[in-house]
């Protein structure tokens, strides 16, 4: 697969596979086209050349780095947004979203507006919103990139638990090697722009130094 903007190649010959239920981390330096890759996978744009199978708007939900919670909706109403978009009434959406909401450490925050939630809590709500879209594939674009180190640790653990309870195919884009190794079963390393795959291996066979080595090229 190949893609660029205004004649500038961003991704050059990227060939990737994720098995259903697998968790793939895409690691690379800033500007290597990680986010572009997610945009293409999400079906928001079409690649200039090549094909994508089993992804696209019908199968993928995107969780951006910024939580993008709607400030006029309570935490629970934000989590249930996708259900309402699919036609559920507000009450129905709340009832459906509540069990997951409470199971994933948000009990007591149902009616809290986003501005009164901590950064970590907001990301949890944003993740739930993505999960409740009911798509088999979750595209996570540096979901914890804006959080402090301690909260990030906490949320990585939380996300592992959440994904074990609600398994999905995951493509996680990150520049945090620890995060990639911790959350995902496979790691792909992209080169600087235009992005090419320079490493593609199961995380069990990798450690921090080997990924770092691949990143340095």
């Amino acid at each position, binding site marked *: 697969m190949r893609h660029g903007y205004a004649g500038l190649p961003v991704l050059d010959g990227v060939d990737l596979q994720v098995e259903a239920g697998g968790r793939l981390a895409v690691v690379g330096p800033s500007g290597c086209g990680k986010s572009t890759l997610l*945009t293409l996978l*999400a*079906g*928001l744009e079409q690649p200039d050349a090549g094909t994508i199978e089993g992804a696209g*708007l019908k199968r*993928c*939900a*995107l969780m*951006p780095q*910024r939580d*993008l919670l*709607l*400030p*006029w909706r309570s935490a629970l109403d934000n989590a249930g*947004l*996708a259900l*309402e*978009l*699919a036609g559920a009434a507000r009450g129905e959406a709340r009832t459906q979203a509540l069990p997951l909401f409470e199971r994933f450490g948000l009990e007591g925050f149902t009616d809290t*507006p986003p*501005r009164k939630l901590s950064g970590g809590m907001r990301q949890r709500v944003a993740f739930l*919103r*993505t999960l409740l*879209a009911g*798509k088999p594939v979750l*595209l996570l674009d540096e979901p914890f990139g804006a959080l402090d180190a301690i909260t990030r640790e906490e949320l990585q653990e939380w996300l592992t638990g959440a994904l074990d309870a609600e398994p999905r195919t995951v493509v996680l884009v990150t520049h945090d090697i620890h995060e990639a190794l911790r959350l995902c079963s496979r790691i792909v390393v992209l080169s600087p722009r235009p992005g090419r795959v320079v490493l593609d291996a199961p995380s069990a066979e990798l450690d921090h130094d080997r990924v770092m080595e691949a990143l340095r090229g």
Partner: protein
Amino acid sequence: MRRFAWVLVLAVLLAAWEAYVQLRGVPEYLLPAPSQIAQALWDDRSTLASQALVTLKEMLLGFAAAVIIGFAAAVLLHLVPWLRAAVQPILIASQSVPVVAIAPILVIYLGFGLAPKVLIVALVCFFPITVNTLDGLERVDPEYRRMLRTLDATRWQVFRRVELPWSLPGLFAGARIAASYSAVAAVFAEYAGGQSGLVDSMRDGFDTPLVGAAIVVLALMSLALYGAVTVAERLALPWARGR
């Protein structure tokens, strides 16, 4: 303490004004003292009150019409991009038409009744409301649209769920500007003829204390409308506070 700083500033200004007029012996027809204006306010209270009601009615009807039409116009221009491209330059150019110049023409068209006044106030209030609402609609972060599309939102849902609520702070910002314009617009309209609004107390250039009194009443009405819009915003959009 800071919230009431204006009381102090106002008191100092009024005292300086009063002292200047008294000490220099400025004749009343050149500059009335605050005490003379206060006297006029009291002496002519019943006339001023009935005139104020007429002006207030013009202000409120024109303002309300501008909010409804201005908001609808902004939404329409936002949803139909080619219409926006076609109409926006004309809309901006229309703002250089002086209200004073067209007011008499509108009176010829619509007579000496309430209608031309309401129309003039609405014309003046329309622009800030439309522009600010449109601005709010356009300023929605495109990231929201992308995220919503992957949640299967339709164009209408993106509008209804994100763009529309996002435009409301803009609507209120425009309405606040419009509220402060509406009083002056109503007086302009009354100058063109008819009705018995506050202008009737402003026409007599020699009875300066009465003119001052009418201006005070007008300013208070304008402030009240501004305050009402601000309170309405706080109640309607608690999420928008401190943004």
